[in-house]
């Protein structure tokens, strides 16, 4: 593998990073508020189908689409986020208002998402498992300066979707909101000790609702990015378990948005390996199916190796009995 390839590999890693980071941040908001969300994958699935539909509607050529151009694509992405949030409200109702076990509800979210996506696909595209390829997307960017790095490394910073940059800078507002604002303090306290939060007159349920809705919006946006900006159309099963890998990255980041940035990139790189290793000398001797296993194996090893060293929000996963009351 020469250096040109490394640059290209990093660029692919950036794409996966974006998916994992957006989704992981979604999980972070939910779990920091005390609601475990293993439905991220399902929320992403809804984001993929509705984002692709949104892009087709707002940015697609007339007569079917509105032909709004780049603005239309953005609206499409936002539509994916909106649908993700709407679907996440099911998880919120179940866990916050009805106190259903968080894992049970999350599993059901994932199950239902597959069927719902087909149904929505049928409604939007009149076919159940994919949309027309080559949908509208945003213009690609080269990052000034970085894209000129020699030895092919600059490759990594060329031809990127603007959403990648958006995801990367998201670490600043998210960290600020979480650690420097009233809302962040309250959200975190709800996830650590909801009794304390409530005993000071702060209602827990609305905070948790906000956390879950944000998780839906971010996972939905991530899914929309995947279908609109990466694959350029919707296909059933295109999320490939990335929602779960995002969850693993979240665990390894110890629920910290800054460390999640690193974890999401490392996992993104692991995702990029199978795509780039085909022509690497030694490894290409392996059957390709084994190379495809690498991201999953990396995730298992990472979780098994580090899980003892992290500390989840103390109240995450607990059905907080007072949440419905205030």
């Amino acid at each position, binding site marked *: 593998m020469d250096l040109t390839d490394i640059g290209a590999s990093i660029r692919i890693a950036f794409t996966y990073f974006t998916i994992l980071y957006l989704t992981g941040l979604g999980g972070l908001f939910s779990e920091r508020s005390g609601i475990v969300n293993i439905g991220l994958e399902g929320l992403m699935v809804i984001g993929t189908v509705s984002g692709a539909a949104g892009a087709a509607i707002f940015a697609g050529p007339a007569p079917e689409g509105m032909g709004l151009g780049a603005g239309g694509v953005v609206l499409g992405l936002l539509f994916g986020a909106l649908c993700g949030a709407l679907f996440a409200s099911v998880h919120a109702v179940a866990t916050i208002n009805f106190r259903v076990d968080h894992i049970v509800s999350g599993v059901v979210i994932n199950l*239902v998402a597959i069927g*719902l996506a087909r149904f929505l696909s049928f409604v939007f595209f009149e076919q159940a498992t994919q949309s027309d390829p080559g949908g509208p997307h945003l213009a690609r960017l080269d990052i000034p300066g970085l894209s000129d790095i020699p030895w092919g490394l600059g490759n990594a910073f060329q031809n990127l979707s603007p959403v990648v940059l958006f995801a990367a800078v998201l670490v600043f507002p998210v960290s600020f909101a979480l650690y420097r604002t009233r809302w962040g303090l309250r959200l975190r306290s709800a996830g650590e000790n909801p009794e304390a939060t409530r005993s000071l007159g702060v209602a827990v349920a609305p905070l948790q609702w906000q956390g879950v809705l944000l998780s839906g919006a971010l996972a939905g946006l991530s899914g929309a990015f995947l279908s609109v900006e990466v694959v350029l159309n919707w296909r059933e099963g295109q999320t490939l378990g990335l929602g779960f890998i995002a969850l693993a990255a979240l665990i390894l980041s110890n629920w910290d948005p800054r460390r999640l940035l690193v974890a999401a990139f490392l996992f993104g790189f692991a995702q990029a390996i199978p795509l780039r290793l085909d022509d690497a000398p030694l490894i290409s001797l392996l059957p390709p199916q084994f190379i495809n296993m690498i991201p999953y194996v990396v995730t298992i090893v990472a979780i098994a190796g580090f899980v003892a060293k992290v500390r989840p929000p103390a109240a995450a996963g607990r059905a907080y009995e007072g949440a419905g009351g205030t």
Partner: protein
Amino acid sequence: MSTGGATLPAPRALPPWLESAVGQGLALLAAFAIAVSAGALIIILYGENPLSVYSAMLSFAFKDVTSVGTVLSIATPLIFAALAVSVCFKGGLFNIGVEGQFLVGMVTASWAALTFDFLPGLLHLAAVLLFACFGGMVYAAVPGILKVTTGAHEVVTTIMMNGIAISIVAYALNGPLRFTKAPPGQNVDLRTDIFEPSALVPDLGHVFGVGGSAHLSWLFPIAIVASAIVWFLFRRLRLGYEARVVGSSAGSARAGGIAIGGVQIKLFLISGALAGLTGMQQVLVERGALVQNYEAQLGFTGIAVAFLGQNNPIGIVFAAVLWAILSRGETALQLGTNLPREFVIILQGILIFSVVVVYQVAKRRLARRELQRAGAEVGLRDTATPEDEALQEA
């Protein structure tokens, strides 16, 4: 204990087992009613008549013996998958990896079917089924051991194992198990060689006049027996008892001297064995080979069926049949209405959600009644418990 004015009259009492059975039944009915009404709403939005849609679905499922047989054969793999989920769930474990375990079970069973073709008759089949269980067990042991030794949560590891399993099947079909005897001149999809008939599960349907297209085989009664065994495990065996203690209160289990890790690994093994049988309906009954476009997602559907059957082995059998009726309804929709077939998936989704929510609500109400009764019979209780506070909120 005399308590003066501090007691309330005791609510009338049914025997405890009956009350909980009635309660669960009512909860299920309520959930079903909610799902059916929500479905009706969607049907109306589509400009169809809910009554005729539902009756079309039902009558299609029961239009003749072959149709009923088809429902049962659709239910068969779901029973195995849901039992696999429930075995772990009882012990407080979420085996989301039934999907991967069943895929690996198909690979090991196919290998056995091709390798042990010298075995006579039923012995061949027995070996194949054994290897199906064995493959699922080995594959389920990995997340079990990781959980016990490192604390890695089984939800994350089993999901990753599912991803790996897809590649294992692909590798088997491309490599070691790839067909050797392709029909000449034809473009055949990737698959294994066709198994010897002795490896296949014999047809059962013809005994009842069910057509061969239903694929109703002896696997269905085997699934029923498996559910009886699971019931027996949790009601009559020490392991099942210990598993329930572990699942309900890990602290009490530990203080009672139960080796939690050992119990959890055993549950994963049993679950994996059941998961391994999930794929046999398609491999040993419908296709007679492992094919590339196999029916996936059965493990995930198993989770839904387990919830629907409330993780009760008997409930799971009925839940699987109900699920199968709905699934078969897809065809009815295509034949007789303008609804997309995906409507059924939505209906199934609403159904599981209303089941988990209604069951949760019913559980709380039941707990409340029990507390009321305890309060009334025993008199003033020592102190307001967290349960009281919870009920206060309810």
